[in-house]
């Protein structure tokens, strides 16, 4: 009788890496839906082309690296990177922007560091930052949300056309609310709100709903135990605290209300889809709390005092640097040991 001999445990939990990735993709849906509703089909074309490019580049580089292509493509990590980048880029970005972004995400940030699991920096954020620095004009021209101009948002065809020839379809672009707030130095927040049609009830029109969408997706992932609460929640708390401290009741120098910060820009996307990237974050729970909180603080600092209107990408990359250090200093105390692992070390 042929009995196999395998090492224990013989049972395995329900979670697999592919499942994790699928759940993450699923969780982006509400946010993507909100973005599409308010800003048109540009986000979807972004996602579509980013995904195709990512899969193609991943397959190519796997082939060059002589790795089993199907096996690795199946883990879904390239897809997740592509979709996050697609969401983060201005809707209906030109194809070459997407191509450069994916090239840097997949090839440079991921595979040149050894591939899945070995990359110290979040690939999507690397791609984003490279683009932001290289093509600041394209990267900051965000289409205006629905209701802010006459006519409708980009339809699927328009979005496609715009992707392939940036000049032929002129979408109405507008400064994002974070931009507006940053440029402001004369109006009280209240007046600013009133005089700009970009502002909605919580934050910016469209932006607030996109953030709500990503928040919902994030809560779903939390419920599914795809990640722990530590990093995202501590990031949101840090951001809330800082913005509350510096709100000063809404003067013209105010940094904006906590609500505004929580529901503007890439806050929720960052908190639940970027900061939680397991590969590039700190590992222990304590480490993740510090990691998340530092990102929250950095986001606020860069948004209010830095040169870039949104700051999630920079903050995350900065903390990616620090993650190994955090891991080193936040090792848990092992059962039966008095001291932490680190304290026994001689180095």
């Amino acid at each position: 009788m042929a009995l196999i001999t395998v090492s224990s445990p013989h049972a395995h939990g329900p979670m697999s890496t592919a499942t994790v990735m699928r759940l993450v993709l699923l969780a982006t849906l509400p946010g993507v839906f909100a973005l599409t509703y308010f800003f048109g089909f540009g986000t979807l074309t972004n996602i579509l082309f980013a995904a195709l490019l990512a899969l193609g580049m991943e397959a190519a580089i796997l082939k060059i690296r002589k790795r089993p292509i199907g096996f690795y493509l199946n883990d879904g990590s390239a897809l997740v990177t592509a979709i996050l980048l697609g969401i983060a880029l201005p809707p209906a970005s030109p194809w070459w922007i997407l191509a450069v972004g994916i090239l840097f995400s997949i090839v440079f940030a991921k595979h040149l560091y050894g591939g899945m699991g070995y990359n110290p920096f979040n690939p999507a954020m690397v791609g984003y930052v490279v683009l932001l620095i290289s093509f600041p004009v394209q990267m900051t021209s965000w289409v205006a949300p629905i209701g802010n101009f006459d006519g409708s948002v980009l339809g699927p065809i328009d979005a496609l056309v715009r992707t392939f020839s940036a000049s032929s379809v002129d979408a109405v672009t507008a400064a994002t609310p974070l931009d507006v707030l940053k440029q402001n130095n004369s109006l009280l927040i209240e007046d600013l709100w009133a005089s700009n049609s970009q502002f909605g009830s919580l934050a910016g029109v469209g932006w607030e709903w996109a953030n709500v969408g990503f928040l919902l997706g994030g809560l779903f992932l939390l419920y599914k135990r795809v990640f722990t609460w530590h990093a995202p929640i501590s990031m949101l708390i840090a951001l809330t605290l800082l913005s509350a401290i510096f709100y000063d009741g809404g003067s013209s120098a105010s940094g904006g209300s906590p609500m505004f910060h929580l529901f503007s820009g890439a806050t929720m996307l960052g908190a639940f889809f970027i900061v939680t990237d397991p590969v590039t974050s700190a590992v222990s729970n304590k480490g993740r709390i510090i990691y998340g909180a530092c990102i929250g603080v950095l986001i606020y600092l860069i948004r209010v005092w830095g040169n870039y209107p949104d700051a999630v990408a920079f903050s995350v990359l900065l903390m990616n640097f620090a993650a190994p250090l955090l891991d080193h200093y936040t090792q848990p105390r092992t059962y039966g040991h008095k001291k932490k692992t680190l304290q026994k070390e001689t180095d």
Partner: protein
Amino acid sequence: MRKIFDIHGGVHPPENKVQSLSRGIESAGIPPVLVHPLSQHIGAPATPIVEVGQRVLKGQMIADAKGFVSAPVHASSSGTVSTIEHREIPHPSGLLARCIVIDTDGKDEWIELDPVEDYTALEKADLLHRIRDAGIAGMGGAGFPSAVKLSTRDDVVIDTLIINGTECEPYITADDILMRERADQIIAGVKILQHLIQPTKQTLIGVEDNKPEGIAALRAAAEGSNIEVVVFPTKYPSGGEKQLIQILTGREVPSGGLPADIGVVCQNIGTTVAIHRAVQYGEPLISRITTVTGEACSAPGNFEVLLGTPVDYLLKLGGFQQDQCIRLVMGGPMMGFTLRDTAVPVVKTTNCLLAPTQKELPPPPPAQACIRCGMCAEACPVSLLPQQMYWFARGKEYEKLEEHNLFDCIECGACSYACPSNIPLVQYYRASKAEIRKQQQEKVKSEHAKARFEARQIRIEREEAEKEARRKARQEAAKKKAAAGKDPIKAAQAKAAPAADPAQAAIEKAMAKRSGNAPEETNEEKLARLKKAVETAEKRLESATAKLKEAEAADAPNLGALQTAHERMTEKFAKAKEELQQFEQASTEAPSTGDPAADAIARAQAARAKNADKSPREKAEEQVASLEKRLSKSEQKLAEAKESGSETAEVLEQSTAKLRDKLDAARAELAQLSESEAPVAAAASTNDPAQLAIEKAMAAREAAAKLSPEDKAKKALESLEARVEKTRTKLAEAEESGADTVDVLRDTLAKLEDKLAEARKEAGVEG
């Protein structure tokens, strides 16, 4: 309500316990053949005490425990011993080991038992003896001999006795059914344990909350006693001994330590029943409850199985369908191991046979890259960082692994279970542990070799120096002799002067050095001291043995170090004993004359006389011969151990290697001696340190005789000062290095200081 503590991590695999609980305990009956492995427990395998062809009765001891950490084996039914041979036994490694095979006769005839009416009247040692003789070893899965676990040292206060009824592994229900059906026996066993351990604070039975019926039965049976049944939430691996202790008491067993270190003794619930039966009825451990389950079994259930029953016989009772099963697990799905063959027997630790279908427990898919998700760390009950350990294990960074407390890993498999990338983490840890152990052993070996080499170098140098010194001393002595025209020894005896005399001191010092003694000690004192030294050495040896044994049982990482320590202790003990003997002999040979100098000289002469007729070469030859004998013995043992797949094989291998090295060294020495035989023989008369010391002392005294009393005092003072200084530095060194000579040195120093003070006073009065 009692406070329940939580453990870190843990996972919640599907329990799958109901399948085997639909029926009560059923007897598995008597199989035609029983296979009793000699090693069903942690520790040394038992030694067979029956012969092939011999008829044995049910409950008859057929193999006796060998050594302290061991357990005997009993025939589980009557029949004839058909063979004693190597067979495959249930062990993760799929080892072959010696087994006693019995053809049963179906009569199931009991041997005469020796029940105890009132165990409370028994001495602790007697009770332990009964438990040991009954062959009881932890039935939860580890199989540690219970008597060993229960023999706590007298100076350790145990305040909590914990009975482990957690059974946290999925599928297994052996303890559950035992609680439901035999709660009375469990409680009776716990009471015996209470009597034995005398826990000063509490006796707790820990059960997970997924066994409501078992809990109710236990509570009913424990009614009116001071045994508390504590229920806590189900979570794997709450049933690990350390985890259970944490859940119930909030205390953590120190890393590398034992539960007794924090006042806890822990026993499995099945073991308590075995202890009850052993004490109350005199029945040895010959059967156990085993769960047969899994979807490839059409009639899952719990069976009371005679130990030694072949697995296939038992599986048949559970309706096992071979064609549906490619993986057969002994134990649970989390920590059990796969069997290669269904012919292996049920042993003392077999709590479950799990025959899953492929669908139920699919073969593991290929591992994907680690995504650093941290789910493994989240699941680890020991708060390790499995993911980091995985990287280090892959990179073979063993130091880092140890820094990350690899050896605290209980191999529970929670991390592997949780890992979304299907990485067989535990496998990596097991392999790394084995590798580290191997390296440690090798390191110990090479360190020994180095130490031996260095010691040899030093000895050679010293011998050179001594030769030179002797030559000088001889010349001088000859001169003096010619001048005095007297036999120096007699002169020395006649002139035996007060202790302040430097020559006298030198003699004593030489004598003292010879026997590793402090100066100025009367015979009685010395005898007492030597006796005490023997005692301490014995005690230390005992404690080292105990520690070693524990470490072996617990598979501790410091095993190698402990072994060396143990060996050192053994040597020390032997040396101390020898010294005592020598001294006793010497004192009878040369009765004390009251004069220490004369005594010392007499002793020295006696010792010399004893050794004089043995040339170094003869000595070396003797040593080689004795080493050869020891080596062949230990090689034989090693072969046996290897054959039987015993756990001691490793240890034996080490000690054999050591012996071999020693023998090589001895042989080399002998060869050298043979080469230099002629000169050695020529120098034989002066080759003796005692002679040398005497000569030196004589010379010194001669010189001293020429000095004025003042000068003498001054010289004595100086020499004393020098000695005090020297002793001080030695003491400081010893203290720094934690050597065990510290005490002796301290004594010596104190005495010397007294003497110095006296001498100073005298000198002061005189000056």
